[in-house]
């Protein structure tokens, strides 16, 4: 499935995505360590020029997925292509088109900031003039040019993170793989990082980003939610919201106490939830189109509407709802399968993830 570009106003940065070109394609990919499936049956297509977030709880398999994309890990199942070449047979040219920011600091503490960036630039084959120009550009970008002569060991954790980012960007990659780029840095710099990711997107750079800050999913064009090594959901942030709640949400306040049961099976209302004596939340197919019908139905039920507005649940809510639902489905599937169910060999991942996405669809 290739999700189309982020629509409407949900995404902060909306750029058209050419869904006909795919930077990363993974089909039924699994990675097994010591008898345990770190990732199982993962399908993922990342359109060229998009910003794709990989989110999930700790230990969900995000870093394993990322490392398979970078070529650090080889899948034990399935097939994958990165920048048009199969994993494991990637040419040097293709590798030069990729930038990678690992989760932990992996540069050299005894080298200065400038030397570290210089070293990585050399690894990616940047010749002298371009290297000198780029190392200054990226260090200025991450605000480390003024401390370029300082050893990396003398930098704070946030500065080391920024140094890693500079090293990942120095060779102007077409595909940028960032494993928790904003971990450990202050909110202002997190903003700088995301601004840079969006700026690169405007130049056609594809970014795959994992993050521990679920709210940062809003920064992405597409989000893949992973739990227990399996894909739970994939789509735009708005699509994930709809997957989580079954549609758009309307927050309604009435003039007096109103029992939502009085709404009955009004057309267009998929679900209701009383949140207060005069407050309730409705799940509708399309918030814009359904508002007038909802007001009419409430009025018909004998109440006056004081306020109605579209609700945008936080991504924490979306994330928690989808993950909990996925876990419940997995537990039910395991119970049905009896003792023989186990962790499966990977194929179960696709089938476990599919109902979640299909439900919302």
């Amino acid at each position: 499935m290739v999700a189309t570009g982020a629509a409407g106003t949900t995404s902060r940065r909306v750029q058209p995505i050419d869904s006909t070109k795919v930077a990363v394609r993974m089909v039924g990919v699994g990675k097994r360590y010591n008898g345990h499936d770190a990732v199982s049956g993962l399908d993922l297509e990342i359109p060229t020029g998009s910003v794709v977030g990989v989110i999930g709880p700790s230990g969900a398999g995000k870093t394993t997925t990322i490392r398979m994309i970078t070529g650090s890990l080889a899948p034990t199942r399935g097939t994958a292509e990165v920048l048009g070449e199969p994993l494991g047979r990637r040419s040097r040219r293709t590798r030069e088109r990729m930038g990678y920011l690992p989760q932990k600091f992996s540069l050299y503490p005894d080298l200065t900031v400038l030397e570290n960036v210089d070293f990585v630039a050399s690894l990616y084959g940047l010749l002298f003039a371009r290297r000198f120009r780029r190392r200054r550009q990226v260090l200025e970008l991450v605000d480390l040019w003024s401390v370029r002569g300082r050893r990396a060991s003398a930098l704070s954790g946030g500065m080391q993170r920024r140094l890693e980012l500079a090293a990942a960007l120095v060779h102007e990659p077409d595909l940028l793989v960032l494993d928790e780029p904003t971990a450990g840095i202050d909110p202002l710099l997190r903003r700088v990082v995301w601004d840079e990711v969006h700026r690169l997107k405007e130049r056609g750079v594809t970014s795959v980003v994992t993050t521990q800050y679920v709210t940062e999913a809003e920064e992405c064009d597409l989000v893949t939610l992973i739990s227990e090594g399996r894909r739970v959901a994939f789509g735009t942030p708005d699509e994930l919201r709809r997957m989580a709640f079954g549609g758009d949400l309307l927050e309604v306040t009435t003039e007096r106490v109103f029992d939502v049961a009085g709404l009955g099976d009004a057309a267009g209302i998929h679900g209701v939830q009383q949140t207060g004596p005069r407050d309730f939340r409705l799940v509708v197919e399309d918030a814009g189109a359904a508002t007038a019908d909802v007001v009419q139905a409430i009025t018909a039920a004998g109440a006056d509407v004081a306020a109605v507005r579209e609700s945008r649940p936080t991504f924490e809510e979306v994330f928690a709802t989808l993950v909990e639902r996925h876990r419940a489905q997995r537990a039910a599937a395991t119970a049905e399968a009896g003792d023989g169910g186990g962790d499966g060999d990977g194929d179960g991942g696709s089938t476990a993830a599919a109902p979640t996405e299909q439900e919302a669809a």
Partner: protein
Amino acid sequence: MGLLKMLLRIFSVAGKEIIEVLRRPGAVVSLVLGPFLILAIFGFGYGGFKKDLATIVVIDPASSLPQDAASYQDLGTRGLSVVEVTSDRAAAEERLRLGQADVVIVAPTDPVSTIEAGAQADLTVIINTTDPVAANYAAFLADTMSTAVNREIYRQGAEQGQAYAITIGGKDLSQVPPDVIASPTKAVLQNLAPLPPSVIGFYGPAALALVLQHLAVTLIALSIVRERSGGAVDRFRSSPLRATELVIGKVAAFGLLGGAIAALSVWLLVNLLGVPMIGSPGSVALVVILLLIASLGLGLLISVISDSERQAVQLSLLTLLASMFFSGFVLRTEEFSTPVQVMSYFLPVTHGISLLQDQMLTGVFTAPWQLVALGGLGAVLLATSWLLVRRELRPA
């Protein structure tokens, strides 16, 4: 363009390694001064000869043998220092047990009568040691002592003109001095080596070879293990860097550092410690280069098979220990059984010591095959390590 980028990567790896080493002042000092200081302390502190063993001689009061320590010291038995002559064997053995003496020699009660009876008189040597080398040394000294005593008995017989008919070819030798009769021959040692042996001259090149191997093994092994544990290898896997470039870069960096340290150490050895330098500097440089390449190959191998920095350090130290025992540094390789000798040839330092001693002390390669062996060992170790590094850089 491809070749240019390859060279760029090799130089960047090499430069990074050199900068990292030089950024640690303590490491630089120990790298440059360490080998020289070790050699200097060894050379000045080691005399090359064992101290004389404190010896107690037990003599029966009724014996005709001398009763004073000076008489035994005059026998000329090297390695023994007679500190006491006593008739109390039990007391002498107690002092031996207490560590107040190294050897107790019990002289035969009546050697002349025993000899007249056609039997050999026992000269009992008692020691108290668990050290096999010390035990062998004491046995050697006991034989020397026995020979000296025999000589003394001959000398006394000749001097006193007793009833022994000492003739050669029927000729009466009564006019020949007793010392000559007792000891008709004496050894005259000649050494064909260009220079007289000296402790620091002999061990200097050996210590240099040992230190160079240890430095090369440790530096390169720790370098890769640290990169693996720090996540840099993960970065390499996703980058265009190839195993060939990584290996060449590291070998070049540590080879250059090792070469600089070797050059400085040789200069200090020759000019400050007086170690001879009879061979050509080019030949010495060739040996150092081959030794460094083989040692770096060994270090790479250790780094690839180690799963932690601790294991790499342990394996490096085990290599050092094996080198101390089996390379010819302490004991000559010829003293080991054939299988152990063969094993010792897999240590670069075994050839390094032999070749450096040859070149610096004699100016010729007495076993040129060791040059080939050292080069071959380096090639095999590097090729094996390169294959393993290449496997490591593939997706896990």
